């Protein structure tokens, strides 16, 4: 009697993720190009207007949104936003408020320590924290999506704190 159950036929599934933005999961540091100046000009005026109508916190007036920073970094095992990164969130919130059709994907990441599935959850907590902070500033949830890569998409692979701290991050990726 042949043991047919032993014979397995193998399929290969290649999932080609053709991202519209071309940068989902990509190193967002490489996509640090400045936004078009027309958008920045739009932000100047719209930002003031939104602030005046009392949507969330007033974000001030007259300054262009600096979108060159698009990562928020975290302490080990933590997902609380540190005050030094609040300006990154403010800048992006201001931009999104001024451009209601623009969207961002918030990508949570962790360093290599700890287990893979737990780190997916921790990464999501980090991206969620940034999303919550943006929503507090009035950004619509329709403009924000949250994903987590856990520790699967490191930007560096050294086994020390100087690398780990670069991986404990939420990236803000324009869609």
């Amino acid at each position, binding site marked *: 009697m042949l043991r047919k159950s032993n014979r397995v036929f193998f399929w290969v599934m290649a999932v080609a993720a053709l991202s519209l933005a071309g940068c989902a999961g990509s190193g967002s540091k490489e996509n640090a190009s400045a936004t078009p100046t027309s958008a920045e000009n739009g932000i100047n005026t719209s930002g003031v207007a939104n602030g005046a109508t009392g949507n969330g916190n007033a974000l001030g007036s007259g300054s262009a949104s600096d979108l060159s920073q698009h990562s928020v970094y975290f302490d080990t095992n933590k997902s609380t936003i540190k005050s030094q990164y609040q300006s990154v969130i403010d800048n992006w919130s201001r931009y999104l408020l001024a451009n209601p059709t623009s969207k961002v994907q918030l990508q949570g990441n962790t360093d290599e320590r700890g*287990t*893979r599935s737990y780190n997916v959850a921790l990464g999501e907590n980090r991206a969620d924290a940034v999303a919550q902070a943006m929503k507090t500033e009035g950004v619509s949830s329709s403009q924000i999506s949250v994903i987590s890569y856990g520790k699967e998409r490191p930007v560096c692979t050294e086994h020390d704190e100087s690398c780990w701290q670069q991986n404990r991050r939420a990236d803000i990726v324009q869609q």
Partner: protein
Amino acid sequence: MRILILLLGILGWGCAHADLDITVTGGEAAAQPIAVVPFQTSPGANFDVAQIVQDDLARSGLFNPLKRTDMLEKPTDPSQVNYRDWRVLGMNDIVIGQEQLVGNGVAVRFYLLDVFRQQQLLGYQMPPSPPDQLRYVAHRIADMVYQKLTGTPGYFDTQIAYISGHGLGDARTFKLIVCDSDGKYPRVIAASKEPLMTPVWSPDRKQLAFVGYQRGRSAIYIDTLATGHLRKFSDEPGINGAPAWSPDGKLLAVTLSYGYNPDIYIMNVATGHKRRLTHSPAIDTESTWSPDGKTIAFTSDRGGTPQIYEMPVDGSSSPKRLTFQGKQNLRAQFSPNGKSLALVNYDGSEYRIGLLDLQTDALRILTDGPLDESPSFAPNGAVIIYSKRTSRGTELATVSVNGQVNQTIKASGDIQEPAWSPFIQQ
């Protein structure tokens, strides 16, 4: 969103991947001397079954096989065996056999003989097998010899699923691979430019559930190995992760966060119906089912740090914490007999594999770290496979549950998240 499905056949991808390279680095002091004599072969029936049997037994660390060059005789039938000569060589037991062409298949016959008592312990005629399946006949023979001599079922006729990652950053690609328990014949089941995670075997060994990503969103898939049919099983917003099959194969415990934070849900495999099991605002993930199907152990940081908790599957009482040693405990796996949990323990500086005795609460650390994770039991409960970070990347390793036998398993790229298959159901 386009999905490319490539049917590449068994040989195409199989040949493109190197076998896993296994090195045994520790062994039982009392490894039993055994001789596995080359089987009699004939034209069309000359696959070296005996070498695979010998390699399996050696890899367990419980046996010390005699080198072929030290064999004075090469009997292939009990009538040819001169027991005194084998006693002189210090052998406890010998395995001999023959391979014969029968129609389109090869029939293997083998004997296990006790040298001191000069008697046959096992004698079997294996059913004819296609020539390219003879390695599985060899693994089954090794299982029978192992069980007869140790009292524990063997674990050689099994498969290991794992994830292989290559490249860095945006160029990183992932493959889900299944290989034999000796690391040979790796077959690519799925490939992706986005992460693939946590492969888990169905109890009947016919399916693999795993996590895949598309444009950053995770989903749980079920692959049917014989047909390659891929079912997208759970695709909620947020996390779809950490699948775990119930022992009867009808349910999957999964981690979903669409209810705001990561919680464990019990889902019916056939219908997709889901029932929420955990209700805390903490992270609850990494489920494992007890072999009686009544309890789930899982990772939760509801107490401030990740620890292992257990609760009844029916939700009739609230979770009970199981781990109190070290700073963190994660990613538990029930042993096949349900009496212990393999887990990842963090003492503040290293992540190492530990074994928690559920009756005594004693935790024994089995590995050295500094970053060991993803433990999975062989189906006989005697060996644990896990991933370890080394200077070369991430590799697989095994350790016996008494901590004495160790192996490292290298391949190209980072290999991680091993899942040892159940036994084939007879």
